[in-house]
């Protein structure tokens, strides 16, 4: 058991996975000159200049605010809409329920680009263009089916007898749903919210198409900066590092639920 070579395999794999992230963080603390001029494993002179620029320049930090705004709106809408839908799918048999459930999933199979044009036209016509709501609504197209699918798995894991017991006890439907059922599937709601958050956070095409100035997401800000002011690589790396943080933060909170979700539900 001294040094079996197989022990290094996971270590190498993890190093391999972490390398790009390390490089991004590494670059974010360098000056653009150092990045372009030499190859260094550690920043020779650590600079916070890039981060300071991001946190002081509104075109930068508003990108984060805009992104987080539509991501959060989207997550809330998706979960709130998906909860009753998933309940219906898990508890009732109705005409075409299986087809409808499958059709919901097929929405996830089309590339977002397909919907970019109709959304652009539609939102321009009703005056939603360049608002966080526009992006949030567009993202529900993918996220509601996903959330319904995840939640339905969790809900079907709860025996129907729980509902009946609550009714026998005298609970009304909403009293049961809000006080008993929702807390029971809290893990599922956490997992669904996490996936909605992540998909909306990383989606770029719709977010860029449906915004111009007022609601510009961070990813769009990053591409613009790269093209106008030459190669501000340090700044870009810092912005990239910061985009990882919300996701990591959310994962930290739902990490136990996700493991449970893999075991129980539909993830």
């Amino acid at each position: 058991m001294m040094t079996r070579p197989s022990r290094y395999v996971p270590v190498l794999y993890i190093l391999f996975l972490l390398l790009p992230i390390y490089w991004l963080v590494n670059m974010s603390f360098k000056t653009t000159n150092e990045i372009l001029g030499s190859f260094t494993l550690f920043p020779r002179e650590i600079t916070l200049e890039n981060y300071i620029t991001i946190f002081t320049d509104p075109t930068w930090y508003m990108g984060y605010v805009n992104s987080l705004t539509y991501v959060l709106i989207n997550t809330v809408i998706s979960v709130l809409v998906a909860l009753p839908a998933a309940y219906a799918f898990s508890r009732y048999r109705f005409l075409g329920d299986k087809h409808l459930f499958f059709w919901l999933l097929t929405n996830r199979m089309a590339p977002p680009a397909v919907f970019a044009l109709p959304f652009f036209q539609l939102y321009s016509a009703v005056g939603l263009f360049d608002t966080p709501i526009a992006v949030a609504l567009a993202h529900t197209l993918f996220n509601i089916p996903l959330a319904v699918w995840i939640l339905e798995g969790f809900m079907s894991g709860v025996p129907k007898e729980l509902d009946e017991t609550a009714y026998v006890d005298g609970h009304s439907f909403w009293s049961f749903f809000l006080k008993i059922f929702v807390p029971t599937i809290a893990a599922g709601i956490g997992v669904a919210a996490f996936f909605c958050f992540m998909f909306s956070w990383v989606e770029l095409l719709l977010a860029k198409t449906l915004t111009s100035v007022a609601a510009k997401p961070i990813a769009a800000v990053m591409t613009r900066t790269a093209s106008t002011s030459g190669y501000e690589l340090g700044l870009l790396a810092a912005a990239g590092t910061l985009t990882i943080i919300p996701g990591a933060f959310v994962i930290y909170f739902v990490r136990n639920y996700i493991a449970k979700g893999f075991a129980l539900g539909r993830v």
Partner: protein
Amino acid sequence: MSLELRAAALRVGADTHIHPTDLVCEPGSFNILLGTTLAGKTTLMKLMAGLEKPTSGEVWFGGQNVTGVSVRRRNVSMVYQQFINYPNMTVFENIASPLRVARMAEAEIKRRVGTMADLLKLTPMLERRPAELSGGQQQRTALARALVKDADLVLLDEPLANLDFKLREELRDELPRLFADRECIVVYATTEPVEALLFGGFTACLHEGRVTQFGPTGETYRAPVDLVSAQVFSDPPINVATVTKTGAEFRLGQMVGWHTEGPLAGLPDGTYTVGVRPHHVSPEETGGQPVPVDGKVLVTELSGSESVIHFTMRGETWVSQSHGIHPFPVGSEQRLYADMSQALFFDAAGRRITA
């Protein structure tokens, strides 16, 4: 406050889940629904509770037509085979749930939950969540919640089926005591005839969505109205064979015959179905009219003091349950004796002949 089903039936699409059923349960009575899995016990209970609305017929309670009245407006409680508790609430809150819905005063809730918890030995667990309890404690919690609100109708759907043997016996002893001084109607579903006999009360035999017989438990057991009821209310399964009667003689196949005395002698000649309970079949010549039955041994189950022998008799599988150890080898030809003085006779339609 009696519960009455008047030709209540439930059809789902083309399937009949419950055939038109007439049933009256008196206040303070303990009623057992006995039947195999899928016999319709749970569905019948849901009709009684108001969780399902009968597609035809009526449900009456305390002289009122409650057909289609939501279970929320009926004073009913129910315990399932699976341990159903609210996972997000403590045991205290679980038991208190029906009282909270009824907006009872906090002090009264505390008092009632306390009494219930004492009765069901849950007092040390009140602050825990159901997932932290053993199966037996979880089912006690469900029972406590069903009993705490003084329901008029308590439905217990195989509440002991998922418990291990020891706990099942323990709770089985406690159950009748819990209802002793209550005026409520208890309906208890089970697949086990032995359980029905232990509880007494009234038993309804259910077979494929039909109540084949309903009456005092002992009577239902001793005097089944038909072959199906006898089969439902027998564990191990009742042994069945076809016999022919000519004059004063009954014959089982060509070889075995016996003479009838008493009331059965008056039956017209013909073919009958005979049912012999397993404990009336023995390797020894015992009972009022032992008739030899030969068969090939399939399985022999020996417990400490009892032998259960499964054997094939003229193409039918028979079971003998007898005292003493009879270690018959599997596959051997053996002669056993069926006590025909205890046999039940059925006509071609399966009705029992009560001569």
